[in-house]
């Protein structure tokens, strides 16, 4: 199994699978709201607006076709969250799954955290492939035998059964957030995790549900003075005392939990001065960071704002080390994007396994990959038309100038209802999961 080598230059991406309903009429509950591979990449979890979690498992590579990596098939489906009603505030709490994060595997079972706006749940997903048979006192269907008929002693034995995957909620972490939860992140100590809402970040222990520590609180004494909110937060991949949180003002703060119990004072603040040429009504909206992700190495972090992806070196706070324009052609369309609400879309971003390539979504079911080494970027489309098995994806191009070349698409023809907000990259291989509104596309690199 080769690691993702030189990046997108030598990689040819091929369609592998698509999951989800084929019809154009999208049921709102089926809208995918989060996608996440587990630490081995064997499992792929999706959450949707209806509060369900669907987990796909990669089939082991078959000996017949060693070139093909295993397909992902449904492993488990369960209802994680239900709609709730807050009677005090007369507010409905949506069941939409905002984030899923896997815990590192410790035993045969898998654990994941899933969250909606207010409540985080720890789910245990376990397999059952044998069951005890031959009870002394019970019939096979479970009814107790008449004691008079019991004349021998036998010990039950385990016999194989059809595989059953069970998901059970092991912990419910509730009532800790006044505002809407936007992020959860498991600590590298594998014991704690953080949850972030618009104004506060809480630290939990995975075993303890009735209390959490508040580690960041940016709520002003007077809410009229509110100028920024927290938009994303993540723990460092291996420094268990370090986490970052991004804000709606385009800043990222790195905090060290050793410094104090309440990390309102940041250890580092990453901010790039605004380009005065680009000022507009909407400058503040488009500078709001929608996602922040540490690199696997822990040396860099990536942020996504409306038009760009920025890579920051943790050692340099003054500006990012790399900036990639995702869809700069939208800068002149911000007013229309404001009117149709697209300007509020929160795109996520992700790293590949060796941090050489980053990926993020765009409109018209386009997604973009930026190769950091080769300085090469590519745009692909996730669509049913390109869905022949193992067909190689053709790079797409948006024409920005007056003259539109063949095969290019003009900015005005882009479908802004087809957006890719959530993408995930397999931690070890060149396999990516890309979520359109209600479908999940899986692409792989062409092997040999």
């Amino acid at each position: 199994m080769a690691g993702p080598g030189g990046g997108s230059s030598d990689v040819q991406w091929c369609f592998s699978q698509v999951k989800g309903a084929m019809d154009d009429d999208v049921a709102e509950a089926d809208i995918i709201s989060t996608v996440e591979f587990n630490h081995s990449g064997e499992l792929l979890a999706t959450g949707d607006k209806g509060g369900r979690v669907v987990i796909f498992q990669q089939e082991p590579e078959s000996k017949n076709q060693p070139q093909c990596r295993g397909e992902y098939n449904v492993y488990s489906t369960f209802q994680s969250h239900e709609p709730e009603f807050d009677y005090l505030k007369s507010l409905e709490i949506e069941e939409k799954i905002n984030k899923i994060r896997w815990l590192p595997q410790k035993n045969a079972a898998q654990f994941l955290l899933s969250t909606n706006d207010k409540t985080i749940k720890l789910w245990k997903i376990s397999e059952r492939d044998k069951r005890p048979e031959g009870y002394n006192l019970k019939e096979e269907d479970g009814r107790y035998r008449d004691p008079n008929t019991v004349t021998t002693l036998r010990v039950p034995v385990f016999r194989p059964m059809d595989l059953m995957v069970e998901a059970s909620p092991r912990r419910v972490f509730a009532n800790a957030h006044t505002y809407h939860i936007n992020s959860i992140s498991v600590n590298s100590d594998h014991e704690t995790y953080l949850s972030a809402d618009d104004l506060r970040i809480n630290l939990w222990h995975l075993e303890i549900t009735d209390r959490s520590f508040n580690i960041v609180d940016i709520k002003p004494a007077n809410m009229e003075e509110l100028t920024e909110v927290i938009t994303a937060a993540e723990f460092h991949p291996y420094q268990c005392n370090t986490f970052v949180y991004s804000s709606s003002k385009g800043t990222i703060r790195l905090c060290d939990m050793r410094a104090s119990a309440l990390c309102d004072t940041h250890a580092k603040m990453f901010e790039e001065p605004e380009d005065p040429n680009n000022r507009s009504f909407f400058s503040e909206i488009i500078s709001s960071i929608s996602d922040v992700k540490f690199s696997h190495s822990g040396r860099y972090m990536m942020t996504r704002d409306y038009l760009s992806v920025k890579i920051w070196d943790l050692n340099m706070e003054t500006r990012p080390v790399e900036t990639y324009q995702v869809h700069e052609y939208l800068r002149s369309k911000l007013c229309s994007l404001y009117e149709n609400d697209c300007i509020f879309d929160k795109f996520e971003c992700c790293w590949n396994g060796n941090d050489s390539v980053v990926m993020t979504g765009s409109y018209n079911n386009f997604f973009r990959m930026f190769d950091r080494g080769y300085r090469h970027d590519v745009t692909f489309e996730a669509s049913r038309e390109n869905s022949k098995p193992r067909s190689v994806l053709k790079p797409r191009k948006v024409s920005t100038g007056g003259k539109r070349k063949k095969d290019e698409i003009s900015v005005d023809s882009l479908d802004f209802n087809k957006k890719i907000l959530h993408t995930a990259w397999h931690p070890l291989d060149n396999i990516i999961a890309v979520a359109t509104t209600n479908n999940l596309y899986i692409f792989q690199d062409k092997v040999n």
Partner: protein
Amino acid sequence: MSATTAMEVNIEAKRILAVSISKLYASRTQRGGLRLHRSLLLSLVMRSARDIYHASRECEAPSEAQSAPEEPMDTGSSPEEASRQPEPQLATSGAETCSDSEEPASDAEEYDCEIAEDKENLSPARQSRKRRGKASAAPDFLPSKRARLEPGEERHAAPLGSCRAGAGDSLTTLSLNRVIPAF
């Protein structure tokens, strides 16, 4: 800035303000309740639009700079008065926006929130202290009554025409400051 460009910007700013207010209303009925982040971004856009609107009006009507700088100030501490003297243009533009913005202001009025600021700068008609619903019921971080005047100062009823920059702002101040305290 030429007159036409200023007017275009003016119209654009007003349009954006109107779009923003309608978005604010729409977000009230969204499932899951008001989203703080979205509301904050909307209020920032409205603030930008308001600032640009005022700036463009200032350019558009420099000859109308015959405000009433001697208008009684409700919170009439002298430093404040002195600082407002150099801005007669804004005061007048404020007067005009006041009448223009009557409609959106009254729409904003129906918005289920308490007025937290500038109570005394509003006309009596607007100074409704009626609580308008559960959603606005006394968030604990907002004082329901605030002593805005220095001891010994009188509270003047602000006549409708005597808009200063503050009142011109009051349209959007109203909306902006209602957005956040809604939480």
